[in-house]
């Protein structure tokens, strides 16, 4: 069971990474290029250009794809494990609804919330001397966000018997936003955009980053949910004559082959 889910999650992560790559290539790379152009134009006059370890062509194609693929597979695998915990524990939800909620939670906890405090930056934005501090703060914001998201789900489930599912979810949401707000109020602000960096490029880069992550998480959640529902569909054994197809026990292998049973159902 877990094995099937984990394999499905990683495969879905590959598909998600391919779609994210398309978005990154079509929208994101042009802003990266503009940011690098700004960086080169504003280098100190006497500065020696950094040796190019990996060419821009490699960075913007196979490097980008490899990074997104690794990220997609990791996210897909982690997602499937969280889904395995969440299945049947978030109330009477269908597989696709559960998968959608888990993906939404992951997107919010791992990207959206931390990025509200420490938004994505293109090359040239951010002082290399503070990379250690900024990395720590970013991962701290991510940990806080994830903890708050998980806490929100637990609280919503605990409050549901007393307030009903909808009101319990709203209460948990408000509580989560208050905690995040307080934490972000306490954390130091990031303020390292260099003088003269085009604001439009920065804005578009951040929107592109959001689009890439949203594409990735939406694909993971929706595709995983659809495949899981297809695999879970009960075997149509209405007719006494038709031998019970070898379905449920073997479902551990590949996901969707149960569709082979549909002619039997229509014939009945």
């Amino acid at each position, binding site marked *: 069971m877990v094995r099937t889910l984990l394999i499905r999650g990683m495969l879905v992560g590959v598909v998600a990474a391919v779609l994210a790559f398309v978005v990154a290539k079509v929208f994101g790379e042009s802003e990266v290029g503009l940011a690098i152009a700004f960086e080169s134009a504003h280098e100190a006059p006497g500065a020696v250009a950094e040796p190019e*370890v990996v060419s821009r062509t490699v960075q913007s194609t196979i490097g980008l794809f490899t990074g997104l693929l690794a*990220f997609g*597979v*990791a996210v897909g695998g982690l997602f499937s494990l969280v889904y*395995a*915990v969440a299945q049947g524990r978030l109330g009477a939800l269908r597989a696709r609804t559960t998968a959608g909620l888990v993906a939404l939670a992951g997107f919010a906890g791992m990207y959206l919330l931390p990025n509200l405090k*420490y938004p994505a930056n293109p090359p040239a934005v951010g002082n290399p001397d503070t990379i250690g501090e900024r990395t720590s703060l*970013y991962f701290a914001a991510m940990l806080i966000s994830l903890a708050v998201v998980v806490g929100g789900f637990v609280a919503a489930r605990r409050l549901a018997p007393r307030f009903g599912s909808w009101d319990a979810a709203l209460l948990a949401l408000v509580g989560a936003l208050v905690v995040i707000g307080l934490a972000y109020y306490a954390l130091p602000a990031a303020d390292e955009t260099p003088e003269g960096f085009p604001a439009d490029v920065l804005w578009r880069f951040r929107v592109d980053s959001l689009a890439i992550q949203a594409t990735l998480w939406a694909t993971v959640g929706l595709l995983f949910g659809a495949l899981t529902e297809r695999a879970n569909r009960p075997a149509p054994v209405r007719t006494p004559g038709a031998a019970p197809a070898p379905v449920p026990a073997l479902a551990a292998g590949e996901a969707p082959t149960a569709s082979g049973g549909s002619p039997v159902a229509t014939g009945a």
Partner: protein
Amino acid sequence: MAHPSVLDAPVAPAPLPTIPLSELAPFALFGSLLALVLLYFVGAEQGAVSLVAGSNVHEFVHDARHLLGFPCH
């Protein structure tokens, strides 16, 4: 949430089985560790911390790191 809507009518609202946490634990431990290592290499290696010498890893996944929102340099 198991309200019968017209669109969903043919699908039986069978409750989803929960998977015992004891069965999940080894997968969760191993899978999470592996996933965290992958995320580390995409998101942070040779930035603030460096396990592999040089900057090849950083430069190779450079664009993905920026566009995924991780601090890069």
